[in-house]
């Protein structure tokens, strides 16, 4: 039995925090007002040199309408480029209280020319404020930084940290070295000092690597699943390189990388570390860092054959670890009303839909 859409909207509004909304440029020239003339000319003359090659595109096509929700195309420009449509279709229709912007492209994360990357990072951060957060205060920006230039990245964090409209630091999880490496530590030092979580969004760009750990896949479905395994290597690198012994208050939010894999990885890391701790003298068990320093956004949430199995996994992980995310306007969008297809308590629902995000991000 279907329920009429209107009645649901009228009676069951679910105010929630959305941990993953993607803003897009209508066209690349949207960035020009935020770039100094020197770099605007560079972009027009030489273009971008992404780490993966194939500048300006994904390494493989994606399903549906280029990975987009097919009903999210505005009249002009790609999905996510029109604030009005985002408001009517998502922020207003679904009653979003606060939404975190995750600006995936052209923030310098993938740019090989590090001076250009720095200019792109500043431009994308200004663009988020001017184009999105000023006209729509429910949205919050992320400080997008080019992680391969950690000194600049730390300076950019420093420059933006006092502005409460920025709620986290964003960079690509597929870094040139696994991201626990000490070359990235200045970023962690700055983020921890300002109590800014680091949001790592899977997918988007390959960083020059094959999209699965055993090579280039034949099908999009394999690539999509690769988001999970990327996040596992992100977590093990950060933990075993000792990042959290050095920066114990550092908060990592894994965005769109799943979470059901995490409890099993924790068990496995603990078992092996007990036997091999002489190689890596961490102060605590690996799973304890996982429990204290990592959060996970929910989308795309698993929909197991027996829905209650998902509740068991969340119990192992901790209900305080999950942050609802829609991934608007991408095709595998999750709706806050449907993520739990099993019984949850009002407290558990409130934690995932609002409270956990507020605790991690400390919105002002």
């Amino acid at each position, binding site marked *: *039995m*279907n*329920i*009429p*859409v*209107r*009645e*649901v909207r009228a009676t069951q509004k679910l105010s929630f925090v959305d941990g993953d909304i993607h803003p897009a440029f209508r066209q690349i020239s949207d960035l020009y007002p935020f770039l100094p003339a020197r770099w605007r000319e560079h972009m027009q003359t030489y273009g971008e040199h992404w780490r993966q090659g194939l500048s300006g595109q994904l390494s493989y096509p994606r*399903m*549906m309408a280029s990975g987009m*929700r*097919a*009903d*999210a195309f505005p009249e002009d420009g790609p999905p996510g480029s029109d604030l009005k449509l985002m408001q009517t279709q998502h922020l207003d229709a679904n009653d979003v209280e606060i939404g975190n912007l995750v600006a995936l492209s052209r923030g310098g994360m993938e740019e090989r020319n590090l001076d250009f990357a720095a200019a792109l990072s500043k431009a994308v951060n200004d663009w988020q404020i001017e184009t999105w957060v000023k006209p729509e205060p429910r949205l919050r920006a992320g400080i997008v930084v080019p992680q391969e230039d950690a000194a600049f990245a730390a300076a950019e964090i420093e420059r933006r940290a006092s502005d409460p409209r920025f709620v986290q630091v964003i960079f690509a999880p597929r870094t040139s070295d696994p991201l626990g490496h000490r070359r990235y530590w200045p970023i962690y030092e700055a983020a921890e000092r300002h109590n800014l979580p680091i949001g790592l969004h899977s997918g988007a760009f390959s960083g020059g690597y094959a999209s699965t750990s055993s090579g280039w896949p034949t099908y999009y479905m394999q690539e999509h699943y690769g988001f999970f395994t990327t996040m596992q290597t992100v977590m093990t690198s950060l933990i075993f390189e000792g990042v959290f012994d050095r920066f114990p208050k550092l908060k990592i939010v894994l965005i769109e990388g799943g979470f059901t894999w995490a409890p099993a990885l924790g068990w496995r890391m603990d078992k092996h570390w007990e036997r091999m701790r002489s190689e890596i003298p961490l102060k605590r068990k690996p799973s304890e860092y996982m429990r204290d320093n990592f959060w996970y956004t929910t989308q795309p949430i698993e929909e197991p054959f027996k829905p209650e199995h998902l509740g068991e996994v969340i119990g192992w992980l901790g209900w305080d670890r999950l942050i609802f995310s829609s991934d608007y306007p991408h*095709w*595998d*969008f*999750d*709706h806050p*009303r*449907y993520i739990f297809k099993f019984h949850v308590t009002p407290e558990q629902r409130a934690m995932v839909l609002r409270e956990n995000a507020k605790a991690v991000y400390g919105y002002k």
Partner: protein
Amino acid sequence: MSRHVIAKAGELQPGEHKVVEVKGREIGLFNIGGEYFAISNRCPHEGGPLCSGMITGIVLSDGPGKYRIERKGEFVRCPWHGWEFDIRTGQSWCDPKSTKVRAFQVKVEPGEELVKGPYVAETFSVAVEEDYLIIEL
């Protein structure tokens, strides 16, 4: 339950569809090869606007490397997650055992029958000389 006049029969050509509203519900009305079908516009998976999705066939395979598309124009693919539904029955192709979008029977009635009532015409008056599409809800 009441019977509703939702469109003129000549309004939809084979291959065309439109969304109509009946008692506050959005319903997708389809003409497939001269037959009329109606399904709810609300995807039973997560509530997406189902009938604004792509109208397509179904890809079937007898084994690796062997594909064929059958029943072109008889499936709708939800614009959110790509779940495919059989427009004729409302049956989900992803999860046929437990998911189905509500389907409504569409009848074609001549205007001269309709004017006798009792019918609810949603948006237009009924003329005796034309045929109309009717659903019961």
